[in-house]
């Protein structure tokens, strides 16, 4: 093979040895997605083969030399019905199968650990509930469902992890979610796949999947001193939210204890489930989300809190299951000594996830 240019030869060898059709399957979802992918691929290949075979054989059998006079055929309802119904049936199978997978990707399980991701031109900022910040990287453990709550602070971005087969747009002004469960430790690509301006192609990062043990080590080593909920608590205090949202009988706002996940009656009629998106909206556009029995007097915080700040507040409210802390913020005007007194080791419960309420309990 000397006559082939060594460059091209190396090139081909490199390609043949590294050839892959799909990225590694590193999440629980990936094999399911790939099964559907290969099903559609199979159908496509059969369809293509049928067309190519027919065209080729007709070209050979009925070329002018062999078949000088064409026979006029009007059509055949039976045949046409066949190639209407068979593709339709196959497409419907794909639709149902695809819809089921779509369900799965965008329906996080109840025990998922929530991590917040803020996209901005041109970086990904990740906020772990334990207070760890990351930029253009995401550390996660295997074997635990992870839910991402995404938002963008400027333009559309898209959080894509090919190895997990998931991708979700980060939208300005609204939370979106996606979840996955990593299975294989390793480092995988993180791409922004929605064109977002000049450095779109540099808005990339690493997804680092660790074993649960390594993950615990990483959490401990990269803490920033205060959990996300504690940051939220400070913000809650400095914005004087507790002036209204308290348990006093004359409180002007509803108590926020155990409000997360509850079904709230709205002043405009109807009810709403207080999820992350609702909490965010209620902070930024309060007058549209007034709960029954309260006057629409809450000021808007639009433009006053950064997206990270809103996330911290949401995380704080999510973890409130008693009014004790709110009373504390009422009594103290400054920083809370308790939260500063915490040692990194005390952060450990955060690993259990935000749903294990009581993280901020004294």
């Amino acid at each position, binding site marked *: 093979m000397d006559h082939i240019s060594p460059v091209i030869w190396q090139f081909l060898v490199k390609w043949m040895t590294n050839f892959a059709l799909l990225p590694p399957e590193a999440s629980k979802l990936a094999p399911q997605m790939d099964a559907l992918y290969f099903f559609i691929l199979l159908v496509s290949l059969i369809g293509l083969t049928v067309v190519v075979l027919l065209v080729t054989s007709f070209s050979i059998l009925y070329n002018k030399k062999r078949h000088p006079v064409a026979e006029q055929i009007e059509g055949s309802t039976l045949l046409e019905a066949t190639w209407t119904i068979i593709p339709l049936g196959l497409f419907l199978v794909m639709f149902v199968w695809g819809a089921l997978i779509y369900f799965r990707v965008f329906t996080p399980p109840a025990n998922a650990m929530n991590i917040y991701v803020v996209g901005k031109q041109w970086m990904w900022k990740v906020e772990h509930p334990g207070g760890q910040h990351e930029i253009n990287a995401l550390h996660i453990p295997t074997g635990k469902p992870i839910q991402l709550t995404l938002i963008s602070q400027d333009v559309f971005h898209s959080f894509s992890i090919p190895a997990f087969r998931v991708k979700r747009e980060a939208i300005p002004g609204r939370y979106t979610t996606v979840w996955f469960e990593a299975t294989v430790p390793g480092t995988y690509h993180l791409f922004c796949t929605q064109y977002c301006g000049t450095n779109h192609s540099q808005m990339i990062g690493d997804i680092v999947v660790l074993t649960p043990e390594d993950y615990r080590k990483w959490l401990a080593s990269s803490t920033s001193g205060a959990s996300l909920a504690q940051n939220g608590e400070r913000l809650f205090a400095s914005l004087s939210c507790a002036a209204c949202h308290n348990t006093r009988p004359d409180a002007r706002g509803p108590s926020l204890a155990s409000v997360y996940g509850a079904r709230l009656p709205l002043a405009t009629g109807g009810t709403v489930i207080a999820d992350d998106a609702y909490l965010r909206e209620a902070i930024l*556009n309060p*007058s*549209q989300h007034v709960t029954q029995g309260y006057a*629409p007097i809450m000021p*808007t915080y*639009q433009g006053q809190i950064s997206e990270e700040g809103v996330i911290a507040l949401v995380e704080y409210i999510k973890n409130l299951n008693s009014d004790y802390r709110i009373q504390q913020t009422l009594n103290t005007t400054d920083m809370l000594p308790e939260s500063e007194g915490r040692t990194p080791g005390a952060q450990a419960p955060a690993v259990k996830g935000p749903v294990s309420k009581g993280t901020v309990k004294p």
Partner: protein
Amino acid sequence: MPDSPVIAHGADEVTDNAHEEHPSYLRHHFESTEQQADATGFAMWLFLLTEVMFFGGLFTAYLIYRNWYYPAFVAGSHQLNVIWGTTNTVVLILSSFTMAMGVWCAETRRKQGLVFCLILTFVLGLGFLGIKTVEYSEKIEKHHVPGLHYSLKSFLDPDSDAAAKAAGDKPLALDMARHTEVYFSLYFLMTGMHALHMIIGIGILGFMIFRARAGAYTSGHVTFVENFGLYWHFVDIIWIYLFALLYLISRHQ
């Protein structure tokens, strides 16, 4: 021309009938004046379809935001003057009527009548735009033009504003008051697009009056007047909806 039972249009009747000599306005590629009138009329209708879809985008936006920010839309709507709006609706309906009468005059070859109707339509059209200008200038004075020093005063403090006070508006929360800007964006976009169509229409009307006095439309060739009539009525229809959607939100409050 051989007779065929499946002719798509009455091409040969005409050639057999009176119009042995082609009238001057028959363009070379048509077989008959009927075909020409049919084709241009149909083309006008298709053009109106594109206009429907053009406004369709705006109506979609309107419906979405009205559902989202209903209180802001109510407060914004209360800033509009129903009397001016109603007057304008009546003016436009009258102009539509005079236009229809103009078409009838052209069809029945009444030259004086046609010129009179067109001039009336022209004047009514200008009247509409005049009233619109008054309304717009009021909005400009109150800084209700989105993007240009937009002021929330009328919505945060309705007592300071005559229109809001008259409607008995309660003060809006700041976040909702901000969304009145969306209402006024749509208000200016929709009425502005409509006014743009009016201006174009009035321009063509002026040209038509000029031509009608020379007797151009009263010698059997009425397609232009008819097609312009379609356009003018379409603009009227858009306004009928704009009036209901923009001016008449929850006036009873």
